[in-house]
């Protein structure tokens, strides 16, 4: 009887118990620093190579469209890509279609620029948040200086050394999009496709299956798949960032969920066998 009760309990564990287990599974690894080396996925490897192959005088459009809500994945991704760009001394501008991204990116880059000898306006610029991505991009492609007009510090495009020689989308060497929403697709539809731009995207794990099609069709030339992609990229760059730190927590949480699914099924299987044996006797 005892075992039967246990098994019956496994079938209907109260959801609050599940939630508590999840909290514990995620927080306990915070107290330890464990590094697990991970194999690098094809997509990350490809992305790394594309960024690595950028020539010295490249100009990158860094589209950051994430907010606090997808920070868990996108922050580490942005940081890893920025570090790679800055190590290679590549000029970039930031453009956001999410209002929060403007501030979050500004904080991130200003925090890093000293280390890599970057200057705001000279090596990079933040053009902040713009509304209505489709229509903005339609105007942006043929005439970048007019559409951008000012950076977030109120400096005009003409006065920004980083923007020298940039007129149309054809002058962009590569488009990077870090996103947790549909902005990647809009970029593909209205900028990448129109100007045949080289585009890479760092996306949240949810978007991977969809974006793999874009990678396959050549619309994207590289992709960083979710948090795992960020972990791999950090490993490629040889530094320990937020993603690597979250690696163990993510692993334990996943294992917990797998275990719970299995536990739930034990009851179902036993029940099935019992009911089929009863049927057999009849």
């Amino acid at each position: 009887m005892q075992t039967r009760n246990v098994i019956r309990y496994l079938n209907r564990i109260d959801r609050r118990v599940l939630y508590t287990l999840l909290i514990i599974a995620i927080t306990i690894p915070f107290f330890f620093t464990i590094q697990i080396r991970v194999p690098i996925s094809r997509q990350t490897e490809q992305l790394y190579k594309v960024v690595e192959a950028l020539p010295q005088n490249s100009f990158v459009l860094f589209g950051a469209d994430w907010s606090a809500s997808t920070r868990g994945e996108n922050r580490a991704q942005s940081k890893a890509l920025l570090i790679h760009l800055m190590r290679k001394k590549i000029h970039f501008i930031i453009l956001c279609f999410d209002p929060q991204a403007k501030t979050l990116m500004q904080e991130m880059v200003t925090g890093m620029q000293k280390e890599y000898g970057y200057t705001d306006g000279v090596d990079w610029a933040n053009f902040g948040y713009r509304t209505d991505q489709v229509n903005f991009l339609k105007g942006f492609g043929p005439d970048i200086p007019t559409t951008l007009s000012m950076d977030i510090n109120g400096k005009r495009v003409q006065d920004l050394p980083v923007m020298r020689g940039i007129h149309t989308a054809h002058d962009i060497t590569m488009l990077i999009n870090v996103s947790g929403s549909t902005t990647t697709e809009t970029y593909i539809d209205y900028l990448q496709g129109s100007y045949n731009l080289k585009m890479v995207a760092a996306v949240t794990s949810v978007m991977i299956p969809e974006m793999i099609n874009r990678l396959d069709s050549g619309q994207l030339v590289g992709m960083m798949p979710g948090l795992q992609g960020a972990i791999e990229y950090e490993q490629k760059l040889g530094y320990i960032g937020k993603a690597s730190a979250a690696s163990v927590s993510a692993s334990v949480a996943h294992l917990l969920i797998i275990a719970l699914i299995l536990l739930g099924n034990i009851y179902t299987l036993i029940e099935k066998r019992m009911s089929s044996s009863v049927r057999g006797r009849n």
Partner: protein
Amino acid sequence: MEHASPLVRIMVPLFSTCIVVMIQTARWKQIKIRRIHGLTAIEEAIGRATEMGRPMVCTTGLGTARAGIEIVTLQALSIITYIVRSSAKFATKAVLPVFDPQMLPVTQEAVREAYNLEGRPDLYNTEDIRFLTNNQFSYAAAVAGLIWREKAGATFMFGNYYAESLIIAESGNQVGAIQIAGTPATMQIPFFIATCDYVIIGDEFYAASAYLSKEPTALGSLVGQDIAKGLLLIIVILGSAAITFSQMAGSSLGKTILDLFS
């Protein structure tokens, strides 16, 4: 592509013509379509909510329109209107939280119309169609709260959904509502499958309003869509065959075909 390429100039109008021609054909020729499983359960769900004496919560999803009103949301509204009409017979209360302010007047009109058509204009209550907010997660928070407080007996989720799908659907599940969902957002379907009683997949969503309304325009359009899809499938199969044979023969014909399409 900023502008259409030559092949696009032929193919897209061709697809469009198929659809428009079939819509016109449907006006005089009767068209039947196959059964769509989840939709037959709508009546059952309304019945359950009525039995329990609980309201229904119907959402038309997030319309993050690129410009103007999202077309998917309109399509969802036409399904929801059908549900509201069916529920009017039993005077079951239907609550419609709205996400896009542009959709608010449209939704109000459509619901009022639905009640009028069923001869129950008294059931219309402005407060049941509420705008919540245009922010994804505060919308989700508010809808979840609404489902809990109203103890929804049935929830209907049609339209575009993103990550909030699970918050809404799981709340419905926890209060024991019978749930039906349909979305063209492929990425959210697994979560609806995990939490809902019936799920309408992919472009069944577009077929839904045709199936429910039996309206010639919608039925004809559906046949037109089928023809266009058939054409697309044939193009893909032929293309694949052409590439296979040309590459087996070692010729560069395959590349020419690919170039034609890009």
